[in-house]
């Protein structure tokens, strides 16, 4: 409600930012080494995109892919072979010129199962190292395992690991150099403390405004907010509402808002009584008062979820599918139809992460309304994920399990791993042949109307089956001082600062 909140990701507060000077950015401590293969957290991926760039860029406002290191791309008829043309005269920060060899190397490494890359979550079933080839110095060709219409999104900046590095790069020591093609060059990186970058005078994109970037790492959000308030940083990248209310209600700060597809999945084991009965699952879904939840947890920065991963931001989402609302009477009816009028006890496993513990408590209270007694197990993330394989993970094994999903530009990952019969993160143990085939069709569909039509079918199916409860999607938020403009952020946590500065 405050005038300071802009709903655009790039804050342009009237006048254009000035060149020069230092921008100080508060970020979270990278959870691990900055290895482009293995980075899987916000702190790490923010670091990657300071010097690293992608073939294409997923624009956080339009959700359309834009050229970055590739200038154009095209697919064959069924979307199984994609050809990208590279931008000429792009130089790495070590002076070397980028060619298709570098791109092929980057992709082969990232898609090689041996490397245990984080990008495998996208590439598994989609791309193998042998599918990547370079017909010439400026062209790269991808032969896909399965036809995929959204392929450019899948290798765009959304796939944050997928930066292009020089051929032969040792990923485990990349942290020492941060070699990339981007607008900034590493000055110094100190684990757990921070990193500084200076501008790349030879950047293909033209002028870089800030002379220096100073990233400072904080373990949690509170000190970031305090630092912003005390003026010791200019930007806080990625914040959540909890604990940051002071910034949100203050005109001295800009809030950068990116609508996104990030959400929480509450899975119920479809293979284990009592959740084997879909009426029980539906009943549970009907207990949640979603608008109230969003208001309590996100104020205006959330959108209703309809128990399927099709977020409002996806162009393919079928908005005509009716929204599920709280209906306790109906829920009770369903429970008694399922022979569960007396209620039951069950366990919900989840992680300590952002608003999840609060959400879990709301779920517990909601379930209690229809006699479902939910015992909460709010665990540290390591304990919760366990080995992340079936049988070794509270996440995947719990009767109910509440997990976080970050932003993706297209719903492919959301539709695959947690929902397909062969999905690796299918915490709901949902096995539905109809769904599986709908999923395949959807992924292969190249044009938007087909996609939307299939999406509608999937949405209806999931609403009926309710293996997952997705009550909301919420915005990616960042904050800057009033005087800072031109910062581009994504809901995932990337921040692009080549055009940012104080006005």
């Amino acid at each position, binding site marked *: 409600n405050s005038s300071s909140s802009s709903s655009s990701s790039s804050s342009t507060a009237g006048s254009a930012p000035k060149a020069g000077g230092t921008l100080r950015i508060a970020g979270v401590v990278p959870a691990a080494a900055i290895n482009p293969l293995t980075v899987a957290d916000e702190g790490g991926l923010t670091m990657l995109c300071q010097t690293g760039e992608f073939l294409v860029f997923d624009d956080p406002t339009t959700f359309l892919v834009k050229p970055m290191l590739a200038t154009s791309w095209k697919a064959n008829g069924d979307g199984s072979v994609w050809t990208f043309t590279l931008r000429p005269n792009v130089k790495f920060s070590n002076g070397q010129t980028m060619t298709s060899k570098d791109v092929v190397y980057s992709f082969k490494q990232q898609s090689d199962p041996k490397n245990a890359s984080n990008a495998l979550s996208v590439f598994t079933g989609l791309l193998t190292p042998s599918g990547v080839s370079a017909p010439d110095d400026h062209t790269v060709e991808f032969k896909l395992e399965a036809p995929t219409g959204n392929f450019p999104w899948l290798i765009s900046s959304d796939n944050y690991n997928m930066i292009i590095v020089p051929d032969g790069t040792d990923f485990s020591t990349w942290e020492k150099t941060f070699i990339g093609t981007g607008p900034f060059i590493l000055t110094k990186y100190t684990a757990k403390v921070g990193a500084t970058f200076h501008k790349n005078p030879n950047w293909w994109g033209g002028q870089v405004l800030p002379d220096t970037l100073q990233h400072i790492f904080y373990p*949690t959000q509170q000190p970031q907010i305090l630092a912003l308030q005390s003026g010791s940083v200019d930007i806080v990248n990625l914040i959540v509402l909890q604990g940051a209310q002071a910034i949100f209600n203050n005109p001295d700060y800009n809030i950068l808002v990116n609508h996104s597809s990030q959400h929480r999945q509450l899975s119920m084991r479809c293979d284990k009584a009592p959740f084997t009965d879909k009426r029980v699952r539906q009943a549970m879904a009907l207990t949640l008062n979603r608008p109230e939840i969003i208001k309590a947890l996100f104020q205006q920065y959330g959108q209703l979820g309809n128990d399927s991963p099709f977020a409002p931001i996806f162009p393919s989402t079928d908005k005509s599918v009716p929204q599920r609302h709280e209906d306790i009477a109906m829920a009770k009816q369903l429970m008694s139809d399922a022979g569960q009028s007396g209620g039951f006890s069950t366990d919900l496993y989840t992680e300590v992460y952002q608003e999840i513990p609060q959400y879990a408590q709301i779920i517990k209270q909601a379930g209690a309304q229809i006699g479902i007694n939910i015992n909460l197990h709010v665990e540290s993330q390591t304990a919760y994920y366990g080995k992340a394989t079936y049988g070794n993970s509270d996440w995947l094994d719990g009767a109910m399990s509440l997990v976080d999903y970050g932003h993706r530009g297209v719903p492919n990952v959301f539709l695959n791993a947690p929902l397909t019969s062969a999905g690796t993160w299918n915490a709901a143990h949902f096995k539905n042949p109809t769904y599986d085939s709908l999923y395949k069709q959807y992924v292969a569909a190249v044009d938007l109307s087909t996609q939307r039509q299939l999406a509608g079918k999937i949405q209806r199916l999931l609403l009926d089956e309710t293996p997952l409860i997705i009550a909301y999607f919420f915005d990616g938020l960042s904050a800057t001082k009033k005087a800072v403009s031109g910062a581009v952020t994504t809901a995932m946590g990337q921040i692009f600062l080549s055009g940012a500065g104080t006005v």
Partner: protein
Amino acid sequence: MNALPAAEAPAAGAIDAGAGQARRELLRELLHSKTFAVGGVIVAFWCFCAIFGYHIGPYGPFDQDLNSVNAAPSSAHWFGTDQLGRDVFSRVIAGARTVLVVSLVATLLGTVLGTILGLVTGYLRGWVDETISRFIDAVLSLPLIVTAILVIAALGPSNVTLTITIGLIFAPLIGRTVRTAVIQERELDYVTAARLRGENGVYIMFAELLPNVMAPVMVEFTVRLGYAIFTAATLSFLNFGIQLPTPDWGLDISQNFSEITAGYWWEVLFPAAAIATLVIGINLVADAVEGVLDR
């Protein structure tokens, strides 16, 4: 052969009143001490809350009102509401239970184990004592919280782990004090007398020595109870204890501490004040008990 008269005592009437009187005397002295009275009232209040707290608050400790989250103290919510719209007052009242149960059980466990440890090491001395003492030294070279973190990180957080961990860490601490007392005590002649009538070690430790080191054990118990609350609350603040959404002061503070920058101080101030009164109360009691028993 009856030349000697019995040792009659004119003042014997006064002496005769029995052991009960000594105890009553102690109790009277305790009750007369102001510290004890103040501490006792506070502790009694929280014990009452621990037993009935879930039912006497104006709201249920779990009742959410998502339409009035983070509401400041008002006549409807004396202590305000938290981020899920729960009544902070009702949660504070109910929150006494976990911390009191955990610390009481942990302290009991620690006292029993520690007393045995102290008796055995103090009485046997020699290599048993040496070995155990080195081990205890090693454990005690880590701050309590760090040891607890190590153990709980290994075993996974839960109230049971928390209780056992605190109890186990307290055992050597209490054991040390008891050992010191036992070492002094075992030099006394009544122990020699017991050995001279052929008593075995177990009898001497538990029937002869134990009753005589009960005073330090009692003092340790009350003092440690204060520490147990301190530790239990701290560990639950560090998220090593009870599960959400159980009302628990430490946990509630940790859940809401990040909110204070937004000005929602009531969500942490009142649970903190609850802990403060309880620990101070227990310590006042402990101080009084120590003062009376040490004499």
